[in-house]
């Protein structure tokens, strides 16, 4: 577990360093994820330890959002002033994004399979 955790932190650190050094708009952890993905593809898959450690970490991904979410208490004033705009923007935008993404993908996939069978 320790070696897997070190590996994850090492990739995150590399990502952060690259992001800062080259002033990239993409955040460090995402670069770390892409690098690890490439490393896994080159090596032919994760080892047992890395797999179980990641699984443990990702199983409770929701927990990691709790501290930031609790920050809503700092913004209660703004939320109280603009609650309608915020609620409608978040609600409608999220629903529309779900629908657009899913329908566009379904359409693309159907066209691809039709071409294959044609």
């Amino acid at each position, binding site marked *: 577990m320790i070696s897997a955790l070190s590996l994850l932190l090492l990739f995150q650190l590399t990502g952060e360093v690259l992001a800062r050094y080259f002033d990239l*708009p*993409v*955040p460090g952890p995402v670069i*770390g994820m892409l690098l690890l993905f490439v490393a896994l593809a080159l090596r032919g898959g994760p080892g047992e330890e890395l797999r179980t450690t990641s699984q443990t970490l*990702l199983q*409770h991904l929701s*927990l990691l959002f709790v501290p930031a979410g609790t920050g809503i208490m700092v913004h209660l004033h703004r939320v109280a002033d603009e609650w309608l705009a*915020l609620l409608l923007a978040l609600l409608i935008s999220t629903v529309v994004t*779900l629908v657009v993404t899913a329908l*566009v993908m379904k359409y693309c996939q159907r066209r691809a399979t039709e071409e294959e069978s044609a």
Partner: protein
Amino acid sequence: MTPPISELWVYLSASPLLGLTITLLAYQAAFWLYQRSGANPLANPVLIAVSMLVLFLWLTSTRYETYFAGAQFVHFLLGPATVALAIPLYQQIRRVRAMLLPVIVGLLAGSLTAILSAVLIGRLFGASPSTQLSLAPKSVTTPIAMGIAERIGGIPSLTAVLVIVTGIIGAVGARYIFDALKLRDPAIRGFAIGIASHGIGTARAFQVNEQSGAFAALAMGLNGALTALLVPLLAGWLTAG
């Protein structure tokens, strides 16, 4: 002689131990409720845990900064967890390769929809300019969204909250929307959840189906990168009008 409770509270409220402990306890209680409900999306564990914590901090008049001094150890794990998403992603590499076109087109359409619709609807209903900017990265995972908000002149901590609420809306609502649209492919369901509602949606997707979870993780990673590129480019134009 035992010290009075108030002295004990002075010690506890200044120590990071309390913030960390109540975060884990609140989450465990919330997760227990979520499981007891038969994994009902309405009993979202983040929503329940956050509500309990806000209530507790308000009742004890504890400042958020004091709480966060302890909770930051949990918050920190978002970084390594984001890196760890490479593993489920790798395990779905075949399926992703077979769906490359839908994945790319879905990513572009979804990412633009998420950014533009949030800002434009916010503006339509009278959100202030800094709130509009804070809304732009709302569909990507917290650390990325906060970074983007900072870069374009939004309010990072407000963005963090908007991101969480977006995640909860997606995690709660996705099943009903997809069922109404008769969308059954777990890969497409997962990918759309990951685009619209990042890690919280991804967490929910993993709880439902392994393949949905992997596609949600892929979508969340790709959308994080794309949004980080798109929002700074669009920001000037978005706030003009």
